[in-house]
């Protein structure tokens, strides 16, 4: 019985981490058809920013979070404007540009902070016990943040004019343009939103993990698996896919402690199996190829 509770709680928590990352990634893909490989690299910048604010300047982690989100959003929008917007038509080039951007960010972080492992204090220290399982407050915060973001995005997309613009651009870029929506500006705002979400994820998740210049690679892979499983462009799908893969990982770790390192492989295999049955992911909208 204890094992089941452990698995449920562990799954919820890792699912929330993936959900936070995947929602941002899915947003920018849905609207601008950009596979932003540098998404987790921005998450890394946010984490280092919090490190600098808390460790070097000694301020409260909350200030670190605010600074991180603002900095990362600005950085994201600037890089979009300079590097990605000019080549938006060439999908292959955009992909490589985001990879190159991620590598540049990695190298800059590596040069400033070296490869030493660093860490960041939690926003709320301590843990509590629920149903016999110890859970950190920071992990609870992550879970609540995921739910909150999902709710906030839902409100944004369904109830505001901006949300309407975003949704219509996602459905059909050209027609949205014809309808008078400034498609380029919507893409820019969505990029800012997406990168801001990456920053927020960094702020919330990073006390649970270690900082080093290569920390962007492993979340990237899990995040892409989640997004593909849920269906590209579908926020609901990313949310659900995150929890499915989170539970899969928890199952592996608890039921096969000798094989805990296989949790990544198992999650990816599940993704492939689902794709075999439904090639567009669970909730993916299958666009007819935009000719």
């Amino acid at each position, binding site marked *: 019985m204890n094992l089941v509770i452990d698995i449920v709680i562990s799954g919820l928590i890792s699912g929330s981490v993936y959900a936070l990352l995947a929602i941002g990634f899915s947003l920018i893909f849905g609207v601008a058809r950009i*596979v932003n490989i540098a998404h987790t690299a921005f998450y890394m910048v946010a984490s280092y920013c919090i490190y600098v604010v808390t460790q070097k300047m000694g301020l409260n982690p909350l200030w670190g979070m605010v600074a991180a989100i603002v900095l990362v959003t600005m950085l994201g929008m600037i890089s979009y404007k300079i590097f990605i917007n000019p*080549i938006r038509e060439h999908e292959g080039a955009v992909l490589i540009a985001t*990879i*190159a951007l991620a*590598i540049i960010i990695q190298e800059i972080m590596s040069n400033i902070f070296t490869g030493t492992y660093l860490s960041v204090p939690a926003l709320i220290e301590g843990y509590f016990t629920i149903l016999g399982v110890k859970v950190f407050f920071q992990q609870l915060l992550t879970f609540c943040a995921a739910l909150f973001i999902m709710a906030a995005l839902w409100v944004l997309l369904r109830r505001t004019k901006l949300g309407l613009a975003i949704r219509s651009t996602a459905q059909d870029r050209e027609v949205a343009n014809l309808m008078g929506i400034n498609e380029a500006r919507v893409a820019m705002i969505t990029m800012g939103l997406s990168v801001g979400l990456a920053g927020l994820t960094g702020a919330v998740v990073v006390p649970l993990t270690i900082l080093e210049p290569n920390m962007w690679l492993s979340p990237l*892979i899990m995040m892409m*698996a989640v997004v593909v499983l849920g269906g*590209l462009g579908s926020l609901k799908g990313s949310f659900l896919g995150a929890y499915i893969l989170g539970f899969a990982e928890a199952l592996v770790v608890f039921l096969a402690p000798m094989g805990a390192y*296989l949790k990544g492989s198992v999650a990816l295999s599940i993704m492939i199996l689902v*794709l075999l049955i439904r090639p567009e992911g669970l909730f993916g909208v299958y666009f007819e190829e935009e000719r």
Partner: protein
Amino acid sequence: MGLILFYVKKLIIIFKNEVLVLPSRVVVVFFFLFLLLLPVVTKDDYILRIFTLASIFALLAASWDLLSGFTGQMNFGHALFFGVGAYGAALINLHANIPPWGSIPLGALCAVLAGLIIGIPCLRLKGTYLALTTLAFPIILIGLVFAFPGLSGGELGISGIARLSQSRVADYYIVVVLLLGLCTIMWKITDSNTGIIFHAIREDEVAVRAAGINTTRYKLLAFCLSGFFAGISGGLYAHFMRIAGPSTLEVSLSFQVVIYAVFGGIVTIYGPIGAVFILFPMLEFLRFWQDYRTLMFACVVLLILLYMPDGLFRWLRDKIEKECPRCKIRNISTRDTCRVCTAPLD
């Protein structure tokens, strides 16, 4: 005697009229000559090593282009073929004691098998889904490598593999000749009927299906061919470095291959090859600036992509050659009229 002279004269005429006419073909000839004559100019082991490794990666990048460029099946897990080829050749060499000229083709056949295994689930996937799914396969394989450390050596990999040949120069020639030969074969494939079908599949798969062509078969063929060539480069790598480890399956290697190919220009075989020969020595050359090496590399790639999003070599080729509007033959851009049909070139 007279016969030989006749053929020599014929060769010279062909050379003058077919090769010297286009600057891009002249460049290719120079490239071939450069690669083949390099050991005559320098015996420095370090430089030969750089070019040998560049040739191995060039073969890998060209094989990626065959799959993802021509057929449009974006493959983000090309390291899988490389790794399977390397591990296959290593295991066969170590356990069955087959020398390199046997273990490398057999390793490549393992990579072909891997190509089939991943090609079949990927048949129904398109675009980004395909890219991200192919990304997953090398990672799953790394998990398996760690799960069976007795067979695969875990994170240490397999070491003690036989050398390619006895000397560095011989190693270099084996790799370069294989590169030039296999790339010529790839080039010929893309020029043939199969190549046309690959182009067509990339442009509009539904239309190709409507024309009655079995795209499944051709897509699987592309996966297998690409896997074969990549597997050969993997086997060469294993025998050259004498160690085959999980670093051959890393995500960063897959990303590097894609960078090389897109930088040089996809849907060409020469693009990725040229890109590797520019970027790889550049990365090594920048060693004097150790701290900023990778940063410079990424910056160069990003800047080139901003101004030449179709790829460096495509852009260069478009600058030095023009296509005739009537007969579609390429001409040197300084000409006023087409060399074949004399239509005016604007």
